[in-house]
């Protein structure tokens, strides 16, 4: 059993806006084991980025972590003092962003920017940092690293900038790298190179990764486990192979069938999810997905379903999955946040193709 690196318990992060309180992250529980690659997927506004920013305590105003614990190697990040959190960021956990141009300082050369990340944490002397920069750039496969340390960010292409960002993220050998849409701004051939690089780094250095993305193909390519978020909540969670082969939650199922696959001849129509994601300052009652769900039953509109076990290691938040389970079992599930795995079988009969 791998060691748990990060454990998020009942995290609530809210934004206090003039229009009301936005429940951006609403009771998220998740964990990342050492060396694991976890994919956090969902559409804009589902809370995936805010979950990651909460881990680093970088939630922008007017947002605030309201309750919950974020344990990194057993220490609660939400209770850290200023000095501790500064040490934690970059040292234990590093984050890379979608747009490498806006995350790099345009008036500082690439080399000194990466050195700064190292010397800031006093782990390396100026001298050590300087020699290490070239190693790092070589590690992320920047060709001609010796001369390119003296380049400015604008002299790097998009793919090279993302490599420089990854080098900076890895500078202090963090145990966890959070990557927020790391390849979304890149062309496909460059994306393929970055995916390969991240795979290699995970294998060679054993760095755990939390990949935040809307791109299911990227998750299939990189991750071992996946968490699907909708409206600030986790709606499904499980091993990648299982979720892709046998998605249980109607949202996961629809999401997987709403993207065309390049390796498939034309299917006539894509599964589209009707309507829009809910306004998180005024979410619908019951299951947050019920207004868009094709399988909605009355119960969904009244009470929010718990995240219950629907198969081995696979959790989903859905009443329909528990529909034909006895009232007693539902009560039990509510109490223990667990549902019978038989429910998974029932859904296959309810949702055509769900088990395909």
């Amino acid at each position, binding site marked *: 059993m791998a060691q748990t690196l990060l454990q998020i318990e009942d995290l609530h992060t809210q934004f206090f806006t003039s229009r009301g309180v936005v429940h951006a992250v609403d009771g998220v529980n998740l964990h990342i084991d050492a060396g694991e690659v976890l994919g956090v997927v969902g559409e804009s506004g589902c809370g995936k980025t805010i979950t990651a920013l909460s881990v680093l305590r970088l939630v922008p105003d007017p947002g605030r972590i309201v309750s919950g614990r974020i344990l990194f190697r057993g220490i609660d990040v939400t209770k850290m003092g200023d000095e501790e959190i500064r040490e934690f960021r970059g040292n234990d956990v590093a984050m890379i962003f979608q747009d490498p141009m806006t995350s790099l300082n345009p008036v500082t050369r690439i080399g000194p920017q990466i050195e700064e990340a190292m010397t800031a944490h006093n782990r390396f002397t100026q001298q050590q940092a300087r020699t290490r920069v070239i190693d790092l750039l070589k590690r992320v496969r920047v060709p001609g690293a010796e001369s390119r340390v003296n380049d400015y960010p604008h002299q790097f292409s998009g793919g090279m900038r993302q490599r420089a960002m990854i080098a900076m993220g890895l500078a202090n050998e963090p145990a966890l790298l959070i990557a927020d849409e790391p390849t979304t701004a890149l062309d496909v051939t460059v994306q393929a190179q970055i995916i390969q690089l991240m795979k290699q780094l995970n294998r060679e250095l054993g760095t755990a990764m939390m990949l935040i993305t809307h791109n299911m193909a990227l998750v299939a*390519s990189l991750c071992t486990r996946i968490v699907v978020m909708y409206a600030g909540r986790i709606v499904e969670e499980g091993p990648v192979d299982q979720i892709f082969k046998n998605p249980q939650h109607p949202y996961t199922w629809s999401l997987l069938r709403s993207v065309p696959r*390049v390796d498939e001849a034309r299917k006539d129509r894509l599964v*589209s999810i009707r309507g829009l994601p809910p306004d998180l300052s005024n979410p619908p009652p019951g299951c947050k997905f019920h207004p868009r769900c094709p399988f909605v039953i009355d119960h969904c509109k009244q009470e929010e379903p718990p995240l219950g076990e629907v198969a081995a290691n696979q959790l989903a938040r859905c009443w329909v999955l528990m529909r034909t389970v006895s009232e007693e079992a539902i009560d039990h599930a509510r109490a223990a946040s667990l549902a019978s795995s038989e429910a998974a079988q029932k859904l296959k009969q309810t949702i055509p193709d769900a088990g395909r």
Partner: protein
Amino acid sequence: MQAAEPRRAPAPAPAADPVLLRVENAYKYFPIAGFGGASVRAVDGVNLEVRRGEALGLVGESGCGKSTLARLITALLPVTRGSIVFDGQDITKLRGGKLRKVRRKMQMIFQDPFASLDPRMTVGDIIAEPLDNYSIGTGAERTVRVAELLRLVGLNPNFTNRYPHEFSGGQRQRIGIARALAVNPSFIVCDEAVSALDVSIAAQIINLLQDLQREFNLTYLFIAHDLAVVRHLSDRIAVMYLGKVVETAGRNDIYDHPQHPYTRALLSSIPVPDPAVERDRDPIMLKGEIPSPVNPPSGCRFHTRCPIARAPGICSEQEPPLEPHGQRDQLAACHFAGQF
């Protein structure tokens, strides 16, 4: 059905040419000030045809010239050289009223639904603007038409007095589509029309575009960097690299039998939402970066990154023409097409 004598096929319409749009040797150079007459060769000798009723996908990476080509085709930019023949007329030679008349038949849907709608106009005015431009209908008729268009794209017809900011990205894209359809065009250019949208919303728009094509017998040119979306929507696909079309083929042939090494590399780079497939997928990594379009490589402009190039040799000396290779109706510009 019983008929006394076999029915004769209806006389062919005057415009029997199966090709709606023909791009012939089109060039677009953007001069760079102060660089001794140097220019960015965004589109550098493109030949392409779009057939009536088909959806042609145009793919390629940033800077390959696909958006510039779209702007040449829709006459939003003048060509440096070459001709663009739409429905029998060379639009590069048209000016004023005649150009306006042709333009009415071609409309564009843009990538960013936030930037392409005027925030100070109501949705009704936005959709009616093309009708005003072409003086179509009376005020009352336009109101009816706007409501009809809104219904057509899946929006509530009572939304005419609202402003763009009241709508989500997907809804705004529907407004953009309604505007494009207002003047009954026959040809629509979609430049990255779904890439700014969330996946579940993109699926709605993709389905809508397909429905509209069927209903109004539209011809589409889809420009996108997402090959999966393009393959889903298109009948044929053209691949661009550094200002040139390097391959065109049917949507299945291009995937099953790519002839140009760039097409092959591009297709192999795309991840698939299936972990079992992903484990065995072995993308062809291209060496280096896309060269500058100011000074493209000699011969075949892909030779500097090509895994099968003979350079120095024929590939660095002679530019390969776009000619038939592989399957029926497939063209590729490569000296060693299909020889991987």
